[in-house]
């Protein structure tokens, strides 16, 4: 019943391959993908955290796991997911406060999010993984 009242005919263009997403749109979809990715890997991260705190033996085994190149790439990806979600999230909080909602400002701030999150990923990744 509610649906009948709300639904109106609206034009729809969801032909994904023909849509050219502007940078703020790319930021937005990566915000969602990174959130989903972090959620899916929560058990892995909790397990790493638990092992790192249980005993010096399990701490050493975490170091062994993290030393594996494949794990390093996954963790670097997760750090980037976290940093992107973090920076894009702060941008959204500012947009909520009506800061930077004009087109030019919004485009600029999305560039800043990419630059800062990638820089933070490289710094933290270099510190923790290498």
């Amino acid at each position, binding site marked *: *019943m*509610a649906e009948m009242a709300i639904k109106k005919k609206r034009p729809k263009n969801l032909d994904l391959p023909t849509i050219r997403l502007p940078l703020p749109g790319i930021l937005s979809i990566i915000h*969602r993908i990174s959130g*989903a990715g972090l959620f899916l890997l*929560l058990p892995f991260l909790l397990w790493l955290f638990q092992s790192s*705190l249980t005993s*010096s033996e399990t*701490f050493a085994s975490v170091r062994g796991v993290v030393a594996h190149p494949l794990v390093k790439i996954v963790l670097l990806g997760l750090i980037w997911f976290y940093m992107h979600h973090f920076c894009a999230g702060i941008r959204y*909080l500012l947009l909520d406060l009506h800061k930077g909602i004009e087109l030019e400002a919004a485009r600029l701030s999305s560039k800043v999010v990419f630059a800062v999150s990638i820089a933070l990923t490289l710094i933290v990744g270099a510190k923790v993984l290498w």
Partner: protein
Amino acid sequence: MVNRILVGAHYGLKDWLIQRATAIIMAVYTVIFLVVVGAVGPDSFEAWRAIFANGFMKFATFLFFVSVFYHAWIGVRDIWMDYVKPDGLRLLMMIATATVLVGYAGWAVQILWRM
């Protein structure tokens, strides 16, 4: 008069607010965590463990975890609402998500207080 039927009375303001409140808690914790780890530079099990044995960090880390799980609930629920159209399947995904997140919260408590 606005032409719509008001059913349910849930327009998501509470979730919208909690998503943002938990985001701020997580952002503040992230900065605290990076500063503490940067300052301590834990290079051994004992030094790493000492960070979370500290009462303040244990409390802050617990708050962070609770925020992560509640924030994840709202975000993942939104993803199911956007992409999973069959009602039964969507409900199943939501229940599964809520269930694992409550489980993770118990796990996080166990990690922090049994170490």
